[in-house]
């Protein structure tokens, strides 16, 4: 306890120092990703095809990761796809916005060649399975924006599950 004169008395050595750090960044989506984002603002999934391997990437990244070339060919994809794999998230963490538990799935849109991460809702966690056919549920039109958050979640379409053979190479 400090005494009235301000001497530190018997408080012991300083063992820790807390330095709050706040850094603000201006993030550049990039020209390719911007095309995907503008598509999302219109409620559409826009992918890009690589001129060398002809694979379709959604979201677009500007460069084919295996060929290192630009992917300028645009492809509009449907709202439907298949869950190739998933997990049920049950752990709270800093920055978490979605109520636990939630299902985080890899979704392969029809016509795309890579899957992306999406949230699955309108089905009990225990019933989610690989091969589940799903469709996108968008936010209301006036809330659409250039962000993946324009997609609220994916829900089952009710179709029969996709055959394992049709998506096993995407795992």
């Amino acid at each position, binding site marked *: 306890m400090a005494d009235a004169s301000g001497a530190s008395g018997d408080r012991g050595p300083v063992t820790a*120092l807390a*330095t709050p*750090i706040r*850094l*603000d*960044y*201006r*993030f*550049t*989506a*990039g*020209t*390719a*990703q*911007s095309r995907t984002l503008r598509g999302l603002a219109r409620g559409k999934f826009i992918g890009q095809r690589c001129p060398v391997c002809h694979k379709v990437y959604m979201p677009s*990244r*500007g*460069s*084919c*990761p*295996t*060929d*290192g*070339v*630009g992917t300028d060919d645009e492809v509009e994809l449907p709202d439907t796809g298949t869950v190739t794999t998933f997990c049920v998230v049950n752990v709270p963490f800093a920055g978490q916005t979605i109520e636990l538990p939630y299902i985080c799935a890899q979704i392969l849109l029809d016509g795309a060649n890579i899957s992306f991460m999406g949230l699955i809702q309108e089905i009990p966690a225990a019933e989610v399975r690989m091969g589940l056919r799903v469709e996108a549920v968008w936010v209301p039109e006036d809330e659409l924006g250039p962000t993946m958050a324009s997609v609220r979640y994916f829900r089952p379409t009710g179709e029969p599950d996709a055959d394992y053979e049709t998506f096993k190479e995407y795992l």
Partner: protein
Amino acid sequence: MSPAPPVHRGSRPVAVVSFAQTQHVRREANRNEVELLMPVIKEVFANIGITKDDVGFICSGSTDYLVGGPFSFVAALDAVGVWPPRRESHVEMDAAWALFEAWVLLQEGEIDAALVYGFGKSSMGDLAKILALQLDPYVMAPLWPDPVSLAALQARALIDAGKASERAIAEVAARSRRSALANPKAQVADDWSVDDLMAEEYVVNPLRRHALPPLTDGAAAVVLATEERAFEWVERPAFITGIDHRVETHALGARDLTVSPSTTKAASVAGAAAGGIDVAELHAPFAHQELILREALGLPDSVDVNPSGGPLAANPIMSAGLIRIGEAAARIMAGEATRALAHATSGPLLQQNLVAVLEGT
């Protein structure tokens, strides 16, 4: 095929055979790092008609704190296309050190060519705050010293030691920006008189705006090759006859800020003491630091310093050091120089320094 220059350090002559860089700008608003890099990678290969399959090792330099996210170097790999799987590594340092890592590997004989690249967009965050995080986290960083103020401390020490004057600093700045007029990639190039520069207000006394580096978004790449490959791909490779780097203590108060012993030592190990340097590209982000480095390297006045304009003309963090090596090599490959010195620095106030000596035949 001409004989390769004798090697001062290492067992095999390794050469720079290609160099490419972005058009350096204050702010690249549309393209992200990958898109910034793609044309540079394409160009560095196209210069010599090779592809990614011709290089056995890829090494890059970049830092997460510039990007604002962890593992930021991973996305950049898409600019190269690392498939089939490749030997690849990364240093969280200026790409000049990635070049050093590649040079070490090339000494051994299993691979004969390497791609080195660096990138960084200073415009994304507040560089002054970011660089404060490089400092001792217990006693310095919490004070948030900005790099310009620190540089001003060093400049003041230099002037008080009688080793520089404000005018001499302005002369460095004027000469650099004038040289940059001949560099199409430079960001800041102009023909200012020293008197005009001396009339500027101080930003932090004794440094005026002209003494500070610009903020730059940019990237660069280099291809290294061993002797046989080098001569297959270019007529006049720039052989690295020696390269070394050294670091000083981090505690600024424990250093004499007016000298650069680590630069002197690195230069000595790299064989620069033999003299005969035509061109020197020095990574001196602040104008007064060029004076410190000249002295540390013992460069005579006859040496052409920073014909590219140096970091005062463009300062893309994480590739500015690599660019010094690339620019020096470019002079040799163009037949404009026979023996060049390139220097790169890391950390506050020239704490760590790398020196490479390059020769053409």
